[in-house]
């Protein structure tokens, strides 16, 4: 089996771009990824594309062919929808395409247009990731669901709003120099604590923003990289996906995310690594509490121990295990369908050494991306590792 190599990455600016359509956003990110990869247009075999709310925000379904066309490609193209994990799921498919020999070159990514909706409309649109009968009809919202998880976490393991504030402060600090990020300004713990409540105990600065943007990757097979002299020094060596009950009420424990634990276990086994080998991670911090649960599911911390990691400096940029060096969903932004592959784009640049924060992980060889859908009823984990750029034929 061949590893899938990341040959190119592309990102639009993440931010408030209400006038830009998904096709426009994805064309920018996808063509940037193709240029970064330096692969020939005619070698691309497929496009895998994540998008969550195109029907609601743009009255546009069937976006697969639309975005392939936007890249000037005439290949099979599929849109994947798994809420906030849409492009993570698309990436898993793309990795398998390359591994099983079906394709030597694939484009994978995602896009989301959200800011053309009013706040109430985007709140409504995001809520459809929850159970429409038993959660949304009772008044569930996306922040409300994570607030219930946070309240349950505090009850079981302890923790405070101040612990969560340190996560927001960390992720904002990481985004200051990231010119793709929505929020490039530092905040203080006091700013976070004093921001208005959204769904208690979560306040505005515990939440990711509403974001427009796109991300894309070009994956190639090892043999294609070698024979076409394509630089692809990062490999996707592990992939895993987990599932859980759709509604929070049907989970055994609202303060843990077993779907992500399952995804991580599978991805680590696939790559032949363990949590201890991970040097840097991008995790799905749609809310500060989500970063806590993600890092615990990934095995970085025991259940109940992740809450203080940012506060104690373990996951900060100069800590033992930097988490969300891009700024995370919190500060980089969360264009829902684009998030999963944006994490891998950021990690690839961090490992390649051409990310603005690469200096903080100069010796890193192993990275993990954690992308979650809804209240983690879907979870996708990928392991990335640096590889020698041109492998010896004898290997």
């Amino acid at each position, binding site marked *: 089996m061949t590893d899938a190599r990341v040959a190119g990455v592309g990102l639009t600016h993440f931010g408030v771009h209400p006038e830009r359509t998904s096709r426009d956003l994805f064309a920018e990110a996808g063509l940037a990824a193709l240029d970064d990869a330096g692969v020939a247009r005619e070698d691309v075999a497929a496009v895998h594309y994540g998008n969550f709310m195109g029907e609601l925000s743009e009255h546009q379904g069937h976006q697969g062919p639309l975005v392939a066309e936007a890249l000037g490609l005439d290949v099979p193209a599929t849109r994947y929808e798994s809420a906030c994990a849409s492009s993570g799921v698309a990436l898993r498919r793309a990795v398998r395409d390359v591994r099983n020999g079906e394709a030597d070159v694939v484009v994978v990514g995602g896009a989301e247009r959200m800011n053309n909706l009013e706040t109430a409309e985007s*709140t409504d649109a995001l809520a459809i990731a929850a159970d429409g009968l038993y959660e949304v009809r*009772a008044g*569930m919202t996306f922040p409300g669901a994570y607030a219930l998880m946070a309240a349950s976490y505090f009850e079981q393991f302890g923790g405070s709003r101040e612990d969560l504030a340190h996560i927001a402060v960390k992720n904002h600090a990481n985004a200051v120099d990231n010119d793709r990020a929505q929020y490039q300004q530092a905040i203080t713990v006091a700013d976070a604590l004093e921001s208005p409540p*959204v769904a208690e105990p979560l306040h505005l600065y515990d939440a990711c923003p509403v974001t427009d943007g796109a991300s894309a990757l070009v994956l190639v097979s090892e043999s294609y990289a070698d024979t076409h002299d394509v630089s692809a020094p990062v490999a996707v060596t592990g992939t895993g996906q987990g599932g859980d009950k759709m509604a*929070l009420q049907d989970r055994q424990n*609202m303060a843990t995310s077993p779907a992500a634990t399952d995804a991580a276990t599978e991805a680590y086994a696939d790559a032949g690594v363990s949590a201890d080998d991970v040097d840097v991670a991008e995790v799905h911090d749609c809310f500060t509490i989500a970063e806590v649960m993600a890092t615990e599911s990934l095995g970085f911390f025991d259940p109940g121990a992740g809450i203080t990691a940012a506060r104690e400096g373990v996951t900060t940029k100069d800590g033992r295990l930097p988490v969300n060096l891009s700024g995370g969903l919190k500060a980089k932004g969360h264009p829902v369908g684009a998030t999963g592959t944006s994490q891998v784009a950021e990690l690839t640049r961090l490992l390649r050494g051409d990310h603005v924060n690469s200096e903080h992980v100069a010796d890193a060889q192993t990275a993990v991306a954690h992308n979650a859908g809804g209240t983690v009823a879907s979870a996708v984990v990928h392991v990335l590792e640096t590889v020698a750029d041109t492998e010896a034929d004898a290997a």
Partner: protein
Amino acid sequence: MSDRVRDDGYDDAIDALAADEGYYLACPDGHGSLPPRHACPHCGARELTETALPETGTIDSCSTLHVATPAFADDAPYVLAVASFGAVRLTGQVRAEPGTVEIGDEVAATVGESATTGDRLVVFELR
């Protein structure tokens, strides 16, 4: 109340809850779930029996929501909770002032109306 087509299973369960005859579905292993179901979501068993919902439940988690979807714009702020009723949990709004509800509180489940749309929803009353 908006005039939508009924949802089999869901609307039947809400009708029953409104009539003080709330029920859930139990599988032979005792797992609870809410209709419509053709299989137990926990073990896949196909024999599901309508079983009376216990009269009181316990709040497992709760939050005061300040930002609502348009369907609850006039209801906010409201207390949203997940409460255990034996083998099954329900999600609903607690009919109590924000700040007065805590995890572990005992509640009864019934059906109320959204102040915004008049649509019915599961609500909890503190016991």
